């Protein structure tokens, strides 16, 4: 579905990525994790076409118009209702107003927002706004969904519910997803494959991990799966090595000794 080959990117004189390569298979959930400033979001922006790399190739099986993007910030138009916001992408792609409105309404219902369609974003909670943003992207039926820490700004309960709902949708619709996150546990329970970026500047892919937890998954049960703990430990160890700081647990044991 998506192949990123040896991408190199700089912001002026500041190098960000050097030779980063990842592969996202169709129908698979892939996550990108890494230290702060390693260029995770930058790589996503390169894939979105919002940033031009100095070198490397982005091979996208689908057209750019088939890529859906969900940012951390929901960025809904404040002067449009929930329904109008969801219909916006459909209208941009030539859908007739009434048809786009009906489609938007159906997606809002699927996202558990029946009865909220005529509300403006300022009349919705953070979680509801995020659901509208998800409906806005999914209404376009993207072949590939790119997400940049979409739930980072939400509180734990809302975040858990939204992530579970999204997981259900992804599994039902067999969506292809690339998620950028700093949350290792989230990356493992959601993904089939996790890529770890090395410490920047000049970050590249350090490691690729396969997640052997069967689907359909439940967020809590996935954490109880025997493969979860060892994989989290390995990821944490590798990430700590990249960051160059002692692992907190290891540090505690060392102090006790």
């Amino acid at each position, binding site marked *: 579905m998506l192949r990123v080959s040896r991408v190199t990117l700089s912001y002026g004189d500041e190098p960000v990525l050097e030779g980063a390569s990842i592969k996202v298979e169709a129908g698979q959930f892939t996550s990108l994790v890494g230290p702060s400033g390693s260029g995770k979001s930058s790589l996503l922006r390169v894939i979105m076409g*919002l940033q031009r790399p100095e070198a490397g190739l982005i091979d996208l099986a689908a057209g750019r*118009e088939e890529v859906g993007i969900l940012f951390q910030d929901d960025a809904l*138009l*404040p002067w449009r209702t929930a329904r109008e916001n969801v219909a*916006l*992408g459909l209208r*941009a792609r030539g859908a007739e107003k009434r048809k786009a409105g009906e489609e938007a309404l159906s997606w809002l219902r699927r996202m558990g927002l029946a009865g909220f369609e005529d509300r*403006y974003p*300022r009349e919705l909670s953070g979680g509801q706004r995020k659901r509208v943003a998800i409906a806005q992207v999914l209404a376009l039926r993207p072949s590939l969904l790119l997400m940049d820490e979409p739930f980072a700004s939400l509180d734990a309960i809302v975040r858990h519910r939204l992530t579970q709902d999204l997981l259900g949708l992804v599994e039902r619709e067999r969506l292809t997803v690339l998620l950028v996150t700093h949350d290792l546990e989230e990356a493992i329970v959601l993904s089939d494959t996790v890529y770890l970026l090395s410490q920047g500047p000049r970050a590249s892919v350090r490691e690729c991990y396969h997640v052997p937890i069967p689907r359909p998954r439940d967020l809590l049960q996935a954490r109880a799966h025997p493969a979860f703990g060892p994989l989290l430990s390995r990821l944490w160890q590798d990430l700590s090595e990249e960051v160059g700081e002692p692992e907190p647990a290891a540090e505690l044991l060392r102090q006790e000794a």
Partner: protein
Amino acid sequence: MRQALDRPWLRQLLALALFLGLWEGAARAGLVNPFFLPPPSQVGGVLLTLVAEGSIWPHLYATFLAALLGLAAGIGAGAVLGFAGALLPCVAELLVPVMILLNAVPRVILAPLFVIWLGIDLESKVALAFVLVAVVMFFAVYSGIKEVDKRLVERVRTLGGGRWLLLREVYVPSVVVWVMGGMKVAVGFAFTGAVVGEFVASSRGLGYLLSFAQSTYNAALSLALVILVIGFVLLLFATAGLLERRLLRWKYR
């Protein structure tokens, strides 16, 4: 009683009544000279006479027409120039310094020039109101586009929106917020332009009447006209407020 006084508008009304009462009392007691500061009752009497005799209407019509024409033309030209300046850097290079200069100087100094160029009739008053309003609207629209939320632009682009959709869904609504913010200032400026233009040289209008009242040392007429202008500007403010609530209902609902 205490509950009734909890309402701010009632407290404001009571304060106004107290102020007018003190003023009236001071004038009647001979503490102030009614020649310079006539009591409210005398000012009210002049106002009633102007309305009852009907002599005020042609003057009100002249001032209103000049102010509204200047307001409409100023909004239109300010919006077009603001859009052009924000979207075309070469236009901004020429326009922004001129607008900054016009904004920095008191634009009413142009009034005598407009009289020389356009005569003492309606045109010179409309021109002054126009210049006053156009500068305010230019900056409202220019800033509205320059300060547009880049996340919204990026969002619409990633949803597949082109230039037309961006303009309709992001730029125009953003600009409306700024324009409505500047609307009350613009209404005040339109009246300033019309009245000052009439004050400098005219044969009718509230500014002309003010000039007449000044030359005849008629303080009661001057105050009556000031109250009239304030009353009508407040009326237009209320209309602008209603328009704002309608256009920005997403903000007020």
